[in-house]
Each structure stands twice: as C-alpha cells, then as structure tokens.
C-alpha cells in the first residue's frame, strides 16, 4: 500500500493512498466539522461543511471525499473557512424551520452543536419558513421535513447497512425531500423493516421516535457500523 506524505496545517503527515483528508486529519487528532459524513457509511460530500483549503486548487475542497495526494498542502482552519462553514450552517437553518425550543432533538442535535461550535448565533439571511409536512404514518417513527438538512445519512444507512433501500432523495434544490419508497407514506412502505437505523443516524430531529417529548430524542449513536470502516471502502 503506497503512502502519501503531505502537510496538514503546516505539519508533515502521511496517509495511505485512498484515504481521505478527513480520515487522515482524524487520525492526526485534527478535528474538522462534518455533518453529512458518518463513519461507516459511504461519503457523499453533500453538506460541504468539512471544506478545507488545498494549495493550488481554486475552491475549498470537502475533506470527507477528497483523497490525499503526495505533496498536498492542506489547511483546515482559516478565517475564510470559518466563515464558509458558518454560512453553510446558517443556510441550513434558514432554509427550513429549526425551532430548538420545541424540538425533540433539543440538546442532542448535530446542527445545534455545529451552530454553537461555529458561533452561528444570529441569522443575516432571511428565513424562508417553508410550510413542510410531517409524515407520521409509521407506527414507531415520524419524519418532520421542517428539520431535515438533506444530509442523506438515512438514505445511505438504509441502503448500505440495512439493505432495505426505503429512502431516496426526490426533487432538486429547494424542493428536494427524502422520500420513502418513491413517495409512499412511510407507514405504507413495503420495504421498511422498522429497524430504526435512519432515526438513529439522523443528525437533527427530522427523524424521530414517536412518543418522545421535547428534548427527549437523544439518539443512540452506537457504533453499529464498524465493518465498513476499512481504508478507502467508505469513500466513493
């Protein structure tokens, strides 16, 4: 297995070919904020929160899907990056309706944590306040699209781990939604095994267990996916 040496925030580091910048950074103890990425699932680079600067490349690169290369110079922290990440988080907030105080995930929400960590404490962008629906037809679980950040973790865990492929993303841009069985109400899904994995991986309160009251949605982020954590295997 060939090894690439490069610099991470000025420090020389080495990573195996096929590893992503995120993986090497994590090994090195350098933390990069992420949202759509989840260890054990494939990476899709959907949220762009993990962006880093790579010398010679015009735009910041998502660390979760960018493989390391020999001689690369990677910067994980800078004012521009902070601003970029903060803007990404702000956009996620204003695009839908995230109302922490009445949310089942309050206190256990990755979006909320990111806002705290990145100092996103007010919005300059206008809130779009769309009226989105809640599908509560499943016996055990519900999905509130108001809180979905389209990270597609649910889509991937269902497909890659459970093997049911109940979830997909339908529509583009502002109209994009995760849907069960191409638009069948979740409760009528012929493929859903009710395993609950999607609920556990959802970073926000979009997917939740019914019957949980506000702030009671604490997810069990147990490491139930270790068998995919091979170098390279998690990366497309």
């Amino acid at each position: 297995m060939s090894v690439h040496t490069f610099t991470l925030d000025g420090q020389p580091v080495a990573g195996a070919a096929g590893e992503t910048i995120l993986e090497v950074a994590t090994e090195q103890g350098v933390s990069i904020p992420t949202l759509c990425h989840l260890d054990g699932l494939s990476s899709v680079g959907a949220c762009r929160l993990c962006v880093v600067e790579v010398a010679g490349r015009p735009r910041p690169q998502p660390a979760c899907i960018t493989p390391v290369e020999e001689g690369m110079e990677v910067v994980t922290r800078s004012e521009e990056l902070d601003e970029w990440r903060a803007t990404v988080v702000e956009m996620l907030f204003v695009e839908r309706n995230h109302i922490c105080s009445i949310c089942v995930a309050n206190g256990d929400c990755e979006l909320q944590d990111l806002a705290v960590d990145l100092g996103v404490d007010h919005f300059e962008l206008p809130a779009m306040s769309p009226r989105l629906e809640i599908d509560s037809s499943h016996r055990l679980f519900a999905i509130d699209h108001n809180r979905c950040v389209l990270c597609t973790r649910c889509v991937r865990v269902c497909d890659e781990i459970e093997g049911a492929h109940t979830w997909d993303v339908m529509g583009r841009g502002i109209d994009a939604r995760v849907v069960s069985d191409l638009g069948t109400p979740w409760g009528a899904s012929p493929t859903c095994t009710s395993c609950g994995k999607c609920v556990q991986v959802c970073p926000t309160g979009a997917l939740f267990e019914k019957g949980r009251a506000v702030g009671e949605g604490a997810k069990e982020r147990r490491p139930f996916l270790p068998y995919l954590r091979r170098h390279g295997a998690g990366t497309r």
Partner: protein
Amino acid sequence: MTSCAGDVPVAGLVIGVGNPLRGDDGVGAAVARAVAHVERVWALAVTQLTPELGEALAAAPLAVIVDARVDLPPGSIHQERLTGTEARRHAAVLGHHLAPAQLVDLTRLAYGWVPPVFVVGVGACDFDRIGALSGPVAAAVPDAAAIVSALLSAPVASPGG
C-alpha cells in the same frame, strides 16, 4: 435558591445579571461562571435582578453584582461600591426587575441589613448574537473575574452599603 450552598459559610455572593441569548448582555453570566469555582463563592446567573434575590443577598457577607453597561467603552470595566438610596426607590416603576441600588434598598428594608455590595460593570456593545460575546467583551471576562475575586478576598471596611 435555597440556602447558601449548604453549611459552609460563603465568602461572597456573585450575581451575574443578563441574558446570554442577547450577546454582550451575557457578560454578567460569563463572569459569574468564571468565578463559580472559587472556593466558598456562591455564584448565580440571572436574567434580571428580582426581589427574590434579596433573600440571597441578606444571607451573604459580601456581594458583587456583575452587569453589562452600554455607557462604557466595550470591554472596559468599572467598579463601584453601592450605597442604596431611599430616593431611588421612587425613581423607576418597580416591575419584576430592579436596578442594583433598588435591590440593595429592598434588601435592607426587608431584611434589616445588607452586606457591602459592589457593582462591576463591563462595557458592552453587541446584543444581537445569540449566546456569544463580542471580541472585546469576551476578552474582558478574565479581568472582570479577577476584579471580582479580589473584591471577594479583600477585607471590607464596614458593613452597611
């Protein structure tokens, strides 16, 4: 708010006033947090001074109220020893929230005495951020905390205030 932190006599009460959801207004709470670990300090963070705090005040040998001030340059710190005045109680409509001098007055009237009370004001400017202090104000927190600690450990001339 029950009794003072159990049976150990407290050296002093620190009341950080302000709403951390309103940017620099949270500086009082930040300073209170910074001194909360100091031995025998009883630190409270409140959004406003309420009559209920009179009980805590009357039970403390010394008190420091930390608050944000808009009339000071951001990050600058002002300290003064408070003496409540009878005149001031008429000054403002008394709602649920009191000015520090009013709290001192009320405490003296209701409980018969007040400990020496100091007010530490920190200049503030940005009230729009939720849960975060602006740069200069955040930088002033350690200094303000040091001033509070010094006030708590220095012997004070006479009770009253």
